[in-house]
């Protein structure tokens, strides 16, 4: 395999792993390498390519995996594999993509990507008279490479020594993956996607355009026009399962809860608890000592509230489907849980279910039944983002 192919392989490897690297970014990398910014050194190449191709720390882990896989065995110090180096020596025409890349794009049926790229190139050319700077080097001599000068420099960490492959193989960024469960801040970031802006409230914002317009119409007599500011008007109702099977996830749900509470992002946030399934009562506290009729909660929250149910959706079928089926034997419910869930779903325009367990757990059984009533998502960054999208 020659070096060009290896780089192209790398590019497609990243895309296959869900890193949305574009041709634009790939050519930026080629341009930078043509200028010698990788210093013919694998470790520098590792960092250079990452800073140009990967724009999200959640994808650093995928990058590491692809890197470690593809460049295994070519990590012979000192430096970049000879075939890549040789390939880079070949002065490629500035505006052309490597032939291997084009062939590969066509084979994968990604012609659209290529067209879009060419279109952008054309636009750039028209706009800049051919003088855009983002691919080529425009006659700069390659930067000399001779390492860095240690005097007066503070280089952090141990530095050097470890090979790029080893760094990649360590997979230090595993914890940043989006499909992992998450901390409070990550949840907040994900929940922020849940917003709908409306102009609402007191008209206390000067509408400059309208003011000028009206003032002109009045022949210069200043006429101030005010409007309401844009605000997020979403109100959110959290319904949390505090049943025993949720115990392993108590921490996680607690984090979701504290994230949601500490956000001043929503216009209002209410929360209630339930035990395994929603019946005629919801509870104001986790220990279910203060019962509040579900009908009352529904009456107090109109259809515009967005509802997030959090639970593992796993229970005995009778708990969901049968009269008198509630797990607590003192609790005589004359309406099956599924009817109550259905009422909740019908009452609100948008409601979703977040499930901390693995998707395979809700393919069958009560999970599958509840999933037919509420769109169900995993309690992960990705899942919350998808849920937020579904509730907008």
């Amino acid at each position, binding site marked *: 395999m020659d070096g060009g192919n290896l780089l192209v392989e790398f590019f497609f490897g990243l895309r296959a792993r869900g890193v949305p690297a574009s041709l*634009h970014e790939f050519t930026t990398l080629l341009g930078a390498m043509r200028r010698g910014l990788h210093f013919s050194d694998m470790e520098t190449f590792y960092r250079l390519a990452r*800073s140009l191709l990967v724009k999200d720390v959640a994808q650093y882990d995928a990058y590491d995996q692809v890197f470690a896989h593809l460049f295994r065995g070519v990590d012979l110090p000192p430096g970049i594999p000879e075939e890549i180096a040789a390939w880079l020596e070949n002065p490629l025409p500035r505006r052309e993509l490597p032939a291997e890349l084009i062939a590969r794009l066509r084979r994968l049926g990604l012609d659209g990507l290529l067209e879009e790229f060419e279109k952008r190139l054309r636009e750039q050319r028209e706009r800049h008279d051919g003088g855009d*700077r983002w691919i080529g080097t425009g006659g700069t001599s390659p930067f000399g490479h001779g390492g860095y000068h240690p005097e007066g420099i503070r*280089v*952090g960490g141990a530095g*050097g020594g470890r090979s790029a492959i080893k760094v990649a193989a360590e997979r230090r960024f595993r914890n940043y993956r989006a499909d992992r469960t998450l901390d409070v801040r990550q949840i907040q970031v994900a929940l922020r996607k849940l917003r709908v802006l409306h102009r609402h409230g007191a008209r206390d914002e000067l509408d400059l355009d309208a003011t000028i317009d009206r003032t002109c119409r009045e022949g210069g007599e*200043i006429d101030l026009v005010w409007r309401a500011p844009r605000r997020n008007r979403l109100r959110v109702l959290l319904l949390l399962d505090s049943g025993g099977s949720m115990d392993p996830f108590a921490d996680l749900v607690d984090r979701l809860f504290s994230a949601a509470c500490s956000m001043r992002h929503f216009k209002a946030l209410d929360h209630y608890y339930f035990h395994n399934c929603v019946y005629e009562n919801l509870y104001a506290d986790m220990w279910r000592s203060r019962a509040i009729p579900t009908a009352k909660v529904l009456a107090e929250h109109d259809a515009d509230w967005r509802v997030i149910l959090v639970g593992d959706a796993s229970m005995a079928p009778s708990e969901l489907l049968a009269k008198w089926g509630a797990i607590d034997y003192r609790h005589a419910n004359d309406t099956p849980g599924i009817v109550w869930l259905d009422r909740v779903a019908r009452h609100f325009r948008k409601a979703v279910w977040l499930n901390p367990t693995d998707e395979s757990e809700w393919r069958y059984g009560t999970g599958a039944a509840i999933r037919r009533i509420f769109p169900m998502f995993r309690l992960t960054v990705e899942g919350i983002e998808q849920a937020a999208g579904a509730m907008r």
Partner: protein
Amino acid sequence: MTTRKTSAEPPAFDRFRGTERYVASRELRDAVNVAIAIERPLLVKGEPGTGKTVLAEHIAEGLGLELLKWPVKSTSKAVDGLYTYDTVQRLNDARFGDHDVSDIRRYIRLGPLGTAFTASERKVVLIDEIDKGDIEFPNDLLQELDDMAFGIVETGERFTAKHRPVVIITSNSEKELPDPFLRRCVFHYIEFPAPDLMAEIIKVHYPDLSEALMAQAVARFYALRSVDALRKKPSTSELLDWIGVLLRCGVSADALRREIPFVGTLLKKDPDLRAYTAGAIRLPG
């Protein structure tokens, strides 16, 4: 040899090397230098307290250039960074007729980016917390950052940067940034410093700190950070404050082994603090 109009300085990659007071990891230095070399904005993300904002100050200091700061707020508009046109002032002046209002330029004020594009020497521009802006904010900046040029609609003037500024953008990931914007940036995520890098950072701030106290403080700090139940994990800046307090109060390394004095300097959330004092947080080791 061809001369290039955009950079008068001789090409050199390793321009930014950190400064006496800022310890940059190799990764970060490389990312900064790549961004300078290919003249693209550098987008920096990372946990709060990992020095994203001060980075720009130190890049400016390290390169000997002036820094122009642009703190983004939820009400910021992209054009504000280029210039603002004070219509209200002009309207007012027109009404009371005590100023010459025919010259629009009197009412145009350049923003940080506009200043950098029109300056006669190279500047460093910090666009701080870009995610605080409106969702469309980054997209509205694309063209100007690509071209390093802008026009003033009101006067019809157009400026192209003589010296492409070094643009540093920070984000706390409160909002996702649009793809076209990301494509044009060099990206770096500042990792939370590993203990050995942290020791170096501490040394920069407290050169006289004894080895024993340093080792013990760093160990306690990382133990505390490893507790997953915390609402908010302590950051570098909090660690530095804490060590400052320890020094001022003459706490010994030995005392640290038994407890964490002044834990309020490290734990800022009420539930965390309560959990700690109640003994609910058990530190490993």
